[in-house]
């Protein structure tokens, strides 16, 4: 791994000018004469960098500025403030050498041609990216195996299920072997099996080709499985950038203790907040600093069969982050 980051973002900002209008006919007529606009800051002063081969989860609620940032990184949007460098290029210049080495997959958009077989759309990309036939066949073989595409290639896109289409979209976006992958909700709307499949594929692709991946997803399972590091933005601002474990450490002041007892229905509310109590098993939430203390007391005072201390689910932690 080289020390030069693949992605460097410094003080990045994007402000949209949005026309503002009151509802109603009167306001509509008024807007013909004087148009008032309002500035909306979608992204505010964000800085981070991503090393080659790294997979970073880019998290935030809807409207946080994730897609705007990904669009700026892939050259579709022009930033209003700050600097971006992706593999040595300024994205919005859309230099051919830049476009040849990146890809952007948006889970809600598609690039494949609707009416023709998948393989023909792929062939189109082969020609656009000027991939030699030898190289193309090798890549297609690999992608077909990893994503199990062989039965899909001869079908027109319109005959594919959402999950099948997404697999083909991802393959189409990777035919030119990009170094940097921007993935915006690549698993959105897919069932659990398909999500897992795509997740596994992305992990494998990253390992094989040391590709750099910046991924947004609302499914924490994606993030936990793929990303050691996460960047969280909220209202356009960067809230956290670091290891997933550090995130939990920092934003979750609680731990969860699950105790299995020999006897039933012990009232443990004096030890901590009881979340569930089913049969012999009780789940407690305790302040992180008191974890050792509470654990000790439980073991000393009660007939404990089993006891585990866990971090709260990542969803809960993220919720905690956004509520601050």
């Amino acid at each position: 791994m080289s020390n030069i980051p693949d992605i460097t973002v410094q003080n990045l900002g994007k402000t949209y000018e949005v026309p503002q209008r009151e509802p109603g006919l009167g306001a509509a007529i008024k807007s013909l004469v004087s148009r008032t606009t309002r500035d909306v800051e979608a992204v505010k002063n964000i800085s981070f960098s991503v090393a080659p081969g790294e997979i970073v989860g880019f998290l935030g609620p809807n409207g946080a500025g994730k897609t705007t940032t990904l669009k700026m990184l892939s050259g579709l949007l022009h930033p209003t403030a700050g600097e971006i460098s992706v593999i040595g290029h300024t994205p919005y210049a859309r230099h051919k050498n830049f476009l040849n080495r990146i890809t952007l997959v948006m889970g809600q958009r598609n690039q494949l041609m609707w009416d023709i077989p998948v393989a023909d759309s792929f062939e189109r990309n082969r020609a656009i990216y000027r991939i030699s036939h030898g190289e193309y066949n090798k890549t297609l073989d690999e992608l077909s195996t990893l994503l199990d595409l062989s039965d899909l290639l001869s079908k027109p896109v319109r005959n594919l299920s959402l999950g099948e289409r997404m697999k083909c979209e991802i393959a189409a976006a990777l035919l030119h072997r990009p170094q940097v992958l921007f993935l915006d909700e690549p698993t959105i709307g897919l069932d659990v099996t398909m999500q897992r499949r795509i997740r596994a594929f992305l992990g494998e692709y990253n390992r094989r080709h040391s590709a750099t991946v910046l991924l947004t997803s609302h499914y924490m399972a994606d993030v936990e499985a793929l990303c050691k590091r996460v960047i969280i933005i909220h209202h356009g601002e960067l809230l956290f950038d670091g290891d997933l474990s550090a995130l939990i450490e920092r934003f979750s002041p609680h731990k969860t203790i699950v105790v299995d007892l020999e006897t039933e229905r012990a009232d443990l509310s004096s030890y901590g907040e009881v979340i569930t109590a089913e049969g012999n098993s009780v789940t407690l939430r305790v302040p992180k600093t008191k974890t050792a203390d509470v654990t000790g007391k439980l073991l000393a005072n009660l007939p404990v069969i089993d006891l585990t201390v866990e971090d709260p689910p990542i969803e809960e932690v993220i919720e905690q982050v956004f509520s601050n």
Partner: protein
Amino acid sequence: MKHYTATYWAFFKTSLLEQFQYRAAMAIWMISRILEPIIYLTVWTTVAQARGGSVGSYSPADFAAYYIVLMLVNQFTFSWVMHIYDFRIRQGELSNFLLKPIHPIHADIAENIAYKVLTAIIIFPTALLLFFLFDPNLAFHIQTFAVFLLALGIAFLMRFFIEWTLALVAFWTTRNEAINQMYFTLGLFLSGRIAPIDLLPGAIQTLADALPFRWAVAFPVELMLGRLSQEQILNGFTMQAVWLLAGFLLIQLTWRLGVKKYSAVGS
């Protein structure tokens, strides 16, 4: 250049495949494209007969020749990009094009050519049929035909460039249809579709000379019919060259400004 040929070939093949899916729609479109010149031909033939045999320098056989060649020229030079671009921009489909390391106009040109090749299956037999039905006054000279093909090629490109520029207006207006309709109406008069341009009033002829429509459609037609003097032919090619260059420069400018706007506000 070799790369471009390979890319165009791939675009051509996939466009052909795609359009083949819409055979029925294509046939219906073709009917209206064929009917238009036949209607004008019938009208003008009737007028000529009522006037004792001709209108201006056009006899019914001349009108027949004019409209059969016009049908072919219009078919091979028309484009539809301006009707789809606002959709591309509004739906964000343009983003797909912007992420690719090739200018999107190439795919559109290749798609247009594919369509023309596919519809040739309909348009050539139709022309042949009309030839036997209307008995046109059309002599074939290989030299004239060669010059005609050159004019037709330039006409295709200049018309494509101009209409692609028009399509890009969608970057600034969300609905392009009003502008498209105006372009269509102007074209109907000034490209010689409603009547041969030398039958129109002088002022309109002057306007037709100054605008691109005539040079994209009527000029190759009149050339093929052998109605133009050497001087007029030279003048025609000069005007074609001017509009070809103007269209090319307009595309560069509008595309640059349009993408700048698109990347400022997003889709």
